[in-house]
C-alpha cells in the first residue's frame, strides 16, 4: 500500500556546497539519499514529493559538515499481509516463482499456486495449467495476495499466493507479443 507521509531526516552537507544553491543541493542530496531506500517501519520510499522545511544547520566540529534537519513529504510503499498486488514475474523455478511489485520481491511457492498448474522445466521454465490455457513464466504479470511479510532493516520480502479467487495471470507476455 502506498502512503503519502512526512518524514524527517538529518542531512549532512559538505561545506563546499555552502552558497547560493544550498537548498537546491540539499534537496538533490535528499532525493538521492532517500529514494529507493527501505526502512522497516515505513517501507520503501518511492518518491520525495516536497521538502517541507529545512531547519537550522548545525556545524559539526572537526569535520566542518553541517547537519540540517529536513522535513519532507514522500510516497512510501509498504506491503501488508492480505494485500492484493500486481507484480511481474522475474524468476520461475520448481519451488515457485519470484515476482516484483516495484521494489518488493514476492515469492509465490508452488504450494500456493493452484494445484492444476504444473511446473514445466525447459528453456523457459513456467507453470502451466493442464489445458495449457494459463501460463506463468518470466515477465508474466500476475495478481497475487500477500500472505506473509518479512521486514528486514533494508529489505522487505513477501510471500504471496495466487491460489485464490481472481488471482493469477493478468497479462501474458506471449499474448501481447
Amino acid at each position, binding site marked *: 500500500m502506498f502512503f503519502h507521509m512526512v518524514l524527517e531526516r538529518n542531512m549532512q552537507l559538505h561545506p563546499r556546497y555552502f552558497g547560493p544553491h544550498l537548498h537546491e543541493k540539499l534537496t538533490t542530496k535528499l532525493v538521492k539519499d532517500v529514494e529507493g531506500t527501505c526502512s522497516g517501519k515505513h517501507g520503501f520510499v518511492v518518491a520525495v514529493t516536497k521538502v517541507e522545511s529545512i531547519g537550522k544547520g548545525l556545524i559539526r566540529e572537526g569535520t566542518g559538515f553541517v547537519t540540517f534537519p529536513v522535513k519532507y513529504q514522500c510516497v512510501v510503499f509498504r506491503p501488508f499481509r492480505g494485500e492484493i498486488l500486481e507484480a511481474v514475474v522475474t524468476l520461475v523455478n520448481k519451488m515457485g516463482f519470484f515476482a516484483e511489485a516495484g521494489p518488493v520481491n514476492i*515469492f509465490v511457492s508452488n504450494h*500456493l499456486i493452484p494445484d492444476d498448474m504444473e511446473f514445466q522445466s525447459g528453456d523457459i521454465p513456467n507453470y502451466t495449467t493442464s489445458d495449457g490455457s494459463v501460463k506463468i513464466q518470466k515477465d508474466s504479470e500476475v495478481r497475487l495476495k500477500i500472505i506473509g*511479510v518479512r521486514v528486514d532493516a533494508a529489505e522487505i*520480502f513477501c*510471500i504471496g499466493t495466487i491460489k485464490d479467487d481472481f488471482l493469477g495471470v493478468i497479462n501474458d507476455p506471449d499474448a501481447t507479443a
Partner: protein
Amino acid sequence: MARGRRDEYEEEEEDEEEEEDLEEEDEEEEEEPAGRRGGKKRRRSDFIDDVAVEDEDEEEEEEEEEDVGDRRRRNRKRSGSQFFDIEATVMSDEEEEEEEEGEDDFFVDGGAELRDDEERAIHRRPSILMQPEDQLDVDELRQQLHERYARSSHIEYGEEATEVEQQALLPSVKDPKLWMVKCMMGHEREAAICLMQKYFDKGAELHIRSAIALDHLKNYIYVEADKEAHVKEACKGLRNIFSMKVQLVPIKEMTDVLSVESKSIDLTRDTWVRMKLGIYKGDLAKVVDVDNVRQRVTVKLIPRIDLQTIANKLEGRDVGKKRTFLPPPRFFNTDEAREMHIRVERRRDSNTGEYFEMVDNMAFKDGFLYKSVSMKSISSQNIQPTFDELEKFRKPGDDADGDLASLSTLFSNRKKGHFMKGDAVIVVRGDLKNLMGWVEKVEEENVHIRPKMAGLPKTLAFNEKELCKYFKPGDHVKVISGIQEGTTGMVVKVESHVLIMLSDTTKEHIRVFADNVVESSEVTSGVTKIGDYELHDLVLLDNMSFGVIIRVEKEAFQVLKGIPDKPEVVLVKLREIKNKIDRRTNAQDRYRNTVSMKDIVRVLEGPSKGKQGPVEHIHRGILFIHDRHHLEHAGFICAKAQSCIVVGGSLGSRDRSDSMDSRFGGLRSSDFLQSPMRLPRGRPPIDSGGRGRGGRGHDSMVGKCIKIRLGPFKGYRGRVTEVTGELVRVELDSQMKIVTVKRDQIADTSSMATPYRETPRYGMGSETPLHPSRTPLHPYMTPMRDPGATPIHDGMRTPMRDRAWNPYVPMSPARDNWEDGNPATWGTSPQYQPGTPPIRSYEAPTPGSGWANTPGGSYNEAGTPRESSSGYGNAPSPYLPSTPGGQPMTPSSASYLPGTPGGQPMTPGNVGLDIMSPTIENYISGEGEGGWYLPDIMVNVLRPGEDPHVGVVREVLPDGSCKVSVGSTTLTAHPGEMEMVQPKKSDKIRIMSGALRGSSGKLIGVDGSDGIVRLDDSLDVKILDMVILGKLSVQ
C-alpha cells in the same frame, strides 16, 4: 538383602499359614509397594538368574529373550528361599522352569501385576514343593539372618508400606556399601557366579554380602560389603575380576544401581516404533495391533523382500544361499509377485476381518508388510521419525491417517514446557477437534486455552496431547528442534501439523512439524558459525582449494569451491578447514580494471553469464559474487576475475587513500600475477648472496640455517658457523659435528623462504617502535605492505653485503638479521621455495633503485620512510666487528656507499630525531636505540670519488649528519658517508649505544667481537660489543 529376609519371612509366614487362605496371602504380597520390591529384588534375581540362564543360553534364540525376562521375574518371587538353600533347590527349580516355560507368556511387572488364578497356582507351586526341604533349614536360616541383619533399620514391614516407610528402606550410612569392581568384559555374570561359588565354598570367611552383575553394565559388577578390604579379599584369586580398582557407589546412587528401568511402554495403535532385530533393524514401523497378554504387537512395515529369492525358494531352487545383501525397503506389489510366479493367497483375518495377501507366510496389505513381533524386539522410546520416512510410509491417498499416527509419536517426544502462553494452538483430538485458541496457562499436562470461537467458556482445559501448535501461512517462524534446528522462514503452507516453510536464507522449502517451530521475527539460517568460521566466509580447505561457506550445518559446512565455471559444493568438516582467508586483495577484470571487494561486477562469460552482484571475496583471481537473484548456493557465484566486468565505479578503492591506490594499484591489482612477473626482474638470490663473500669469516651466511644439497651430507640441516671462501663450515643439527661443505652445496632454508609478513619480528620487534605506527596505514595483508616491507629485506639481502664490507656503520640491519636469524625462526620455515625469493628480490630493487641514488626520495615514495629507517636505525650489529681492521680497507666506494643503510638519515625527520635528542632516556630506554655518532669520535669519511680519510666528529647536526674535521678542514658528512674507526687495544673509546652511550673509557682488550672496556668514570670493566665502541680522537 533385607528384602531377602523379608521374603524369607513371608515364605515362612506362608508356610505356617499355609492352610489359611493362600490367595489372600498372595495379594498381600502383591500389594507391597513396587519400590521395595523393585529395587532389591533385582539384586537377588540377578544373582540367581545367572545359574538358570547360563545353562539355557545356548538354546535360546531371539525370541527367547522375553522368556528369560519372564523367568527372571518368576525366579525373583521364589528366590528368597532359593538363595539360602541353593544346594537344595537350584536343581529342582530349573526343572520347574523348564516345564513352565512352554506354558506361559506370563509377564509380571514390577508394579501392577496381573495374573489369573492359574498363573498363581503355577507360581506358587515351587515354593510348595520346596517346602519339606525348606523347612529343615528355615529356623537356622532365620537365625542367621537375624544375626546378620539385626542392625538393619527396616525389620518390620507392614501390610502396606507408606511412602515414609519406603523412604526408610533406602540405604543409609549404616548399611553395607556397594562397590563397583571391574571385571572382564563379557564375563560379568560369570564373575558374580564365581563370587557366589566362592561364598559357598568359603562360607563366612567371605565378608561380602552380595554380588550383582547387571546386564546393561559391561565390564563391572557390584559387590555389597561393609569394607573395601572385604571386597578385595573376596575378589582375590578370581581371574575375571580386577580388584585393583574398587569404587564405592555413593549412597544416593545405590538405589539407582538396582532400580529397574520403568518399562511402562505405552504401546498403542498408530505409534511409531523401530525394529530392533533382523533385517528390519532400525526400520520405522507402525503399530497396528497390540496384544498385551501375549506381549506381541503387529506392526506395519515397508517390506524388505527380494521377490526373486522368494520365487526361488518357493520353487525349491538354491535356497541355501545366505542372504548377502539387504533388500531395500519397497512396497509389495501383488502383480509383480504374480509375474514372478509367486503364489499370492488372499486371506481374511479372522479377528479383524481384513484381507491380507499372503506370500510365503508373510502378510501384506496395501503393499505394507504386517508382521507380528514380540514387544521386546521393537523400541518405542524416543522415536523421531524423519520426514523422509514418514513420507515413504504415507502411501498416496491416505494423508489424513498418517498424520494422526505421527502426531501421537510426536507428542510422546515433546519437550517439557512445550507450550507457552500466547501460542496459537489447535485441538487435534476429542470432541472439540479443530477448535483453535491461544494458550493461556500451562499446568503440567494440562493446558488452558482461550478458544477462538465465541460462545465458549473463557478458558478450556485440555490435555497437552490433545493440542498442537498452529500456524498460519505467512507466519515467520523459527525451528527449535530437529534437523533444521535454528532455521527461520516463512510458513508457506500448513498441512495439519506439518508446515512447509520457506527458509529465509536458502529460499528453499522445508517441511517441519508445527510442534518444532515457534513464531519468531528473527532471521537466521540456523547456525551460522562453527568455531572461527562463519557463514559466507572465504576459507582455505585442506587440499589447498578454497571456497565460500554457503551453509552451516550442524557439524559441517557447505562450501562453494572456488572453481570458476563449475559450481562445486562440498561438505566439509570443521577440521578440514585450514583457515579463513581474510585478505583484502584485488583482481583485474577483463578490461584490466581493478576489482576490489564489494565492487559490483557482471559476469560476461561462463555458465553464470549475465549475473551481477557485489564481489564478496577475491582470491587468486577468482571472484565470489553474491547475486541476490541467484538462488542456488546461497546466492554465491564463483567466476574468474577475467571473465567479469566492473559495473560502475570501484567502491572498494574509493575507501582507500587515493594516492596509495593509484600508485600501487598496478602493483596490487593482481596479487596472484605478481610472482611470475617479478621473477625476471628480481636479482637472483644467489647472485646477491654470493658476491663479495670471499675471504671473510663472517657474513650474512653465518648463523643461518641451511640445508646441504649435495655431497656426503646431503639432506642435513645445520647452521653456518663460518664462511671461508668457497667453503662453509656447518654445524649439523642432527649431529654434534661441524662439517665443511662447499658453498654451492648448501641451500638456504629459511632466510628467503621466511616471508617477511609471516615473521613480523623482522621489523616489528621492540627495536622498531616506529614500525607499528605504520601498520594502520597499510593493513597487514594488503600488498601495499610489500613496498613498505621491501627496504628491510633489501637491507637483509643486498645492503647486507655492503654492510658486511662496512662494519663500522652501526646501523646495519645485520642485527635484525641476527636477531631474527636465531635458529628458531629460520628453522620453522623448512620449505625452501625457490619461487619465493625472487619476489623479494624483486621487491628489493624497487626501492633499492631509489636507494642507490636518492634513498630518501625513494622512501618517501614508498610512503613508509619511518619504518624502513627504523628498521635499520636501531640495530647495531654485534657480529660485524669480529673482523676488524679489514673492513675499512675495502671501500669499494660508490657502489656500496649509498647502499649502506646509513643512507637513511637522508630521510629527514626520522633518524634525525634521534640525533637531535641524544638524551639519555633515549638510550636508557634501550628500545629506541637510535644511537648515532657522538662528538670526538674518529670516523672514516668515505665519499664517492674521494679517498677515505679519517676525521673526527665535531658536532652532530639535527638531521643526523655530522661536522667532521678532517685534517684542518671541517666538512659536513652524512652518516652514510661515515663509518667509525674501529678502536684498537688501549685506545680511548666512547660507547656509542646502549645504556652507557656517551660514556668514555679505555679499550683494554679485544676478544673476538667483544671489547673489554674500562669505563673512565666508574673504572668498571665492561665487555661490550666492538661495534658500539667508537674510537676517541686523541687530541
